[in-house]
């Protein structure tokens, strides 16, 4: 059953009376990579978490084309600060499979395969909390991809990484996208947005100010805030 389109109507997240995100009206199709951009505190992370379903909405609706339970099983999330479970690399990657009832041996075999794909094949038995920043992010990616999700949410996955690690992560993401995984990702890095985006969601003050194909946005944003942001001006 198709997951997309994902349709948000008036979706809103409030905390202590303050609107963090919304109201959001958005329809996402099932192809390519949507890149969420915007200044700090714009609501990018909350928007992603809301779409993924780990932040409770206080208003509006969010509907996948398939039942919600089914949709939740077919998506993964990579956090800005990767959460390392207190286990070895291979057990971290195998964990999502174990949750779905995959046997230990098969889970570890598939986990080892994914670890090799992201370049962690030689440190399978290392404790995850001992990894470097780049290795942690790769592990988080492998752990998210091991269930072969149809949608992958990524919250600034390269925020604290150097150029080399960023390139490696982007290669993994490009490969995932090439295999049909739908990417919905936030980033601060305009270069990365240009490299990966098929469409751009520009967020400011918790609202979507612009949602357009990447070539349209980067050729000339439709809103003054979008233009200012793209020019590197301070936007609040």
């Amino acid at each position, binding site marked *: 059953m198709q997951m997309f389109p994902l349709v948000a109507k008036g979706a809103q997240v409030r905390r202590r009376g303050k609107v963090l995100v919304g109201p959001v009206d958005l329809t996402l199709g099932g192809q390519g990579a949507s890149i969420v951009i915007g200044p700090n505190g714009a609501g990018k992370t909350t928007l992603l978490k809301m779409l993924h379903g780990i932040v409770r909405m206080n208003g509006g609706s969010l509907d996948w084309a398939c039942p919600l339970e089914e949709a939740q099983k077919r998506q993964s999330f990579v956090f800005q600060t990767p959460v390392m479970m207190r*286990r070895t690399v291979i057990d971290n990657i195998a*964990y999502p499979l174990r949750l779905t009832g995959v046997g230990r041996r098969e889970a570890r075999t598939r986990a080892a395969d994914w670890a090799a794909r992201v370049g962690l094949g030689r440190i399978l038995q290392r*404790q995850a909390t001992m990894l470097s920043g780049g290795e942690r992010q790769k592990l988080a990616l492998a752990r998210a991809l091991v269930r072969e999700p149809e949608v992958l949410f990524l919250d600034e996955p390269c925020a604290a990484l150097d150029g080399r690690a960023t390139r490696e992560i982007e290669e993994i993401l490009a490969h995932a996208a090439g295999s049909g995984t739908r990417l919905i990702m936030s980033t601060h890095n305009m270069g990365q947005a240009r490299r990966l985006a098929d469409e751009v969601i520009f967020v400011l003050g918790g609202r979507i100010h612009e949602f357009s194909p990447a070539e349209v946005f980067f050729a000339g944003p439709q809103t003054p805030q979008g233009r200012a942001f793209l020019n590197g001006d301070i936007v609040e």
Partner: protein
Amino acid sequence: MNDLWAGLSQAFWLLVTLDADLVEITLRSLRVTLTALAIACAIALPLAAFLAVRRFRMRRATIAVLNALMGLPPVVVGLVVYVFLSRAGPFGVFGLLFTPTAMIIAQVIIVVPLVASVAHQSLRELWSDYHDLLISMNATQFQRIQALLWDGRRALLTAALAGFGRAIGEVGAIMVVGGNIDHATRVLTTAIALETGKGEFAMALGLGFVLIALAIAVNLAIHWLGRTESEGRW
């Protein structure tokens, strides 16, 4: 000072000669304490994980009560267990009063709040790390509890050791429900209390040193088995 030296030498001789009474009392102490600890951990650790993971209406009150129960006076626990197990009590029919089982019941009641509170502190922090990840992965409530208990196992060892310390050194409750009966319910702590009452300070000190040595040995053994200080582990 003389009593101290006499106690040390008496403890030394008791150990070297493997005094039969001492061995019996020590083994009974270990059996009662470790059984109580195992039962307490089986109750307290899942309870601590449940309290970390699950949000429910009386959660804060439950945690506050649990913390307050850490200071439960052992003698009062002993008294309550005594009332319940005495012939006139609701469980009198089982004939458990003045048996090691009664001592185990009392120790479980004393140790559960302590282990649960200490474990909850650790698991709460771990849960704040894991919260978004496990929800994102659609882990069920049971799977979340499992993950916390497994990944927090070394911190939980500390909670268990705290429980062991409390149980092995406990005297008030087990004196009341056990009765300190020779060859039946006498354990190290009640034996020390008895010897002190008789004015046999050297013997009491000797038993005390054995008790301390036992506590340290069990702690070291558990640390060694758990490999808590190994490089790259938790």
